[in-house]
């Protein structure tokens, strides 16, 4: 009896609640009030600075003194800026070198730590620690350890008889790039590991059991089950990795300062120098906006190439 009463009353109450809610939410002012804080933040911290950056990019905007409009000169000068073009090529090359190792090492580590076996948490922490410590700190550490005749790297290489211990790692382009790449793979693969591990742990175990019953080998399970189901997570980790590499600054600023010469100068580093060493903020802002477009295009291309079957079907329909 009681149950019947409740059953009868519930829909009525629910209906009244829905009507009340609808009355509240259907008032246009409420929705507007709810989104306005976020909207104001976006306007204040994204749209206005972006608009102001566009304005600056059409001026000579020196760091000191008055500015004047220069039209599109800052943009038309970009193709003539040989150091900028070199830095774009170098950054693309660097991105190409580190992206695959970061992914492969990160995937391998995720496979190692994805189960909840004893000690897995310890290994997860150990592998993720370089990312937590931060690239700037690690770059300074490596700077000391790569010093000729005093750093640990040269000391060890000398001890095992591979070098005489005086290799000037950071003043030879190839050595310097190698050192930075090794550092970055060590630093960033922990993040990739965490992303992929979370994805792997979300795959139902039943699928693996069924595959095992059907006689699928470990490799077959990995390639036919894990990788396809991780497609979106892999896409995310690759996009993050590529954007991070394309915006590289700390490690090169600390370890090589873009040298020798400008051979290891990255795009962001050149923009920084243009703004804060050469004091040409207008030109640097134009370069920054060009970089925003390039990074946007690269990310869009990645999204397009890494889209999964559902996305393809929805595009087709």
């Amino acid at each position, binding site marked *: 009896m009681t149950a019947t009463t409740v059953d009868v009353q519930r829909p009525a109450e629910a209906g009244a609640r829905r009507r009340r809610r609808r009355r509240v939410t259907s008032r*246009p*002012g409420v929705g*507007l009030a709810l989104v306005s804080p976020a909207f104001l933040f976006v306007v204040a911290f994204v749209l206005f600075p972006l608009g*102001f950056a566009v*304005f600056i990019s059409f001026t*000579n905007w*020196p*760091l*000191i*003194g*008055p*500015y004047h409009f220069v039209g599109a000169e800052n943009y038309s000068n970009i193709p003539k800026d040989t*150091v900028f073009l070199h830095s774009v090529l170098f950054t693309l090359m660097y991105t190409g070198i580190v992206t695959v190792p970061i992914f492969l090492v990160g995937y391998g580590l995720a496979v190692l730590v994805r189960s909840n076996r004893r000690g897995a948490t310890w290994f997860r922490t150990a592998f993720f620690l370089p990312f937590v410590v931060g690239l700037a700190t690690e770059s300074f550490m490596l700077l000391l350890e790569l*010093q*000729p*005749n005093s750093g640990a790297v040269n000391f060890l290489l000398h001890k095992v008889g591979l070098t005489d211990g*005086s290799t*000037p790692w*950071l*003043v030879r382009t190839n050595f310097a790039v190698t050192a930075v790449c090794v550092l970055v793979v060590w630093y960033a693969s922990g993040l990739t590991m965490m992303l992929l591990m979370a994805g792997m742990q979300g795959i139902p175990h039943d699928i693996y059991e069924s595959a095992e019953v059907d006689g699928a080998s470990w490799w077959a399970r990995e390639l036919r089950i894990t990788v396809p189901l991780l497609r979106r997570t892999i896409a995310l980790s690759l996009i993050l990795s590529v954007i991070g590499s394309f915006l590289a600054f700390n490690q090169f600023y600390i370890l090589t*300062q*873009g*040298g*020798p*010469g*400008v051979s290891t*100068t990255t795009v962001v580093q050149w923009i920084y*120098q243009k703004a*804060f*060493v*050469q*004091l*040409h903020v207008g030109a640097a802002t134009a370069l920054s906006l060009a970089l925003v477009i390039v990074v946007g295009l690269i990310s869009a291309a990645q999204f397009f190439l890494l889209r999964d079957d559902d996305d393809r079907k929805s595009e087709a329909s």
Partner: protein
Amino acid sequence: MSARLPRRQTDPASARLPGRRANPVSARLSGHGGPLTPRRAPARRRVAAVTAAALACLTGAVGCGSSKPAGPAVSSPQFGTNATGVVHFWDRSATSPYGQILVKEFNATHKHLKVELSPIQDTQYVTKLATAIRSGSAPDLVGIDDINSQLFIYNKAFLDLTSAVNKLPEKNVLSPGHLNLTTENGHYYGTPYVGDMSFLLYNKTLFKKAGLDPNKPPRNFADILADAKAITKLGHGTYGFSFAGRCEGCLGFTMMPDVWATNTDVFKGQPGNQHATVSSNKAMRQTLTLYRKLWSQHLAAPESETETGATWGQDFLAGKIGMLPAGYGTAANAPPAFQKQIGAVPLPGPDGGYSTFDGGANFGIPKNAPNPSGAWEFVKFALQKEQQAQAPLGGFEPIRTDVGTPAFKKKYPINAVLLNALPKGYAPKTLSYNVTFNQPGGPWEQMFIKAVFDGDIDNAIKNGQTGFADALSQAES
């Protein structure tokens, strides 16, 4: 519902479009919503005014906070006398140890005026100061790297202090090189603050061991080469020479005086209208050739190739190096026992003569400083003989030529040598020094590496000429 909508279409644009319905929300927001309109209009005007003001601030050349400086005018006899309040003083972190000494003594003797010193990291100084001036929050007084003074003076960011400087009793004994960097068209926009000059330090003990006369330091390039050969022959990790091959700023500081010793420079003309003369400067080629010989003949320590400046001079202080071009700070940091072994001479030119880089810092008062009179009172205090005589305590040199009393010479013998060279000190008056010499990967660094480590002096100079000229046109554009 639909019948009522047309009555709400008060937006003429909407009303003209057939089939277009007015959105009540947008209508209210846009102020075309009937009864709301009269109340919103003044608010809109206020918003527009505030927005316009904010834009004006952001795009303004100087900044919103700029106002007429408080207190007496620079030409007034009261300027820099009995000022009150607080003086915010931005000092380079490098020179701040000396600045702290001055501030402490000033504050102890001035009850109504206090100075607050903020050390600013050297590499960020120009950026931070420029940003502060633009945003209207400039300090009252700056102790700026003297080589960067012209950047601010040329852009009219500093107060014209001509009448106040002309009244200084010590004007004629101030370092001419430093003072020159504060001038434009005969007007003074600052004063010298403290000196950091470059010299050739040498190890007297190693000179003696190598059979050289420790009282006869090198006077030209031939001497440097010969002495370096003799000292390197001692072996056991001892080298005749050392330099910071990956510290472009250190190299400019210690090599350019070799060129200036011949009374020439690689910049010609006044700031804003200069051109580069690298390829036609004989002394520049001779200086690069000297360093190439020192390197290729293994007379310089191998670490010279990788020294970024972080441990610059440590090999000299370890007693392993015969000669090191450096600043007084290196000698000042030596243990007292080792200091007695150090000799110092101004940097020699290729065939004799000498010069020194008039580095260090200059005072300047930003145009929109709130307390310029207080700042000038502190400047006058800092320029006094007693205060300048304390510069070696911070690892620097005084910028007054009359500080070298017998007591000073006895207490700081190396500093006294440097003080004697003050009248021959020099620093280029240019807008492009930072871009040319201090920028990693800049034209100076590239020229040095190509000439000294790669041995291609001809192409290094050729590229250097182009690079210096480009840097000048960038800086002056």
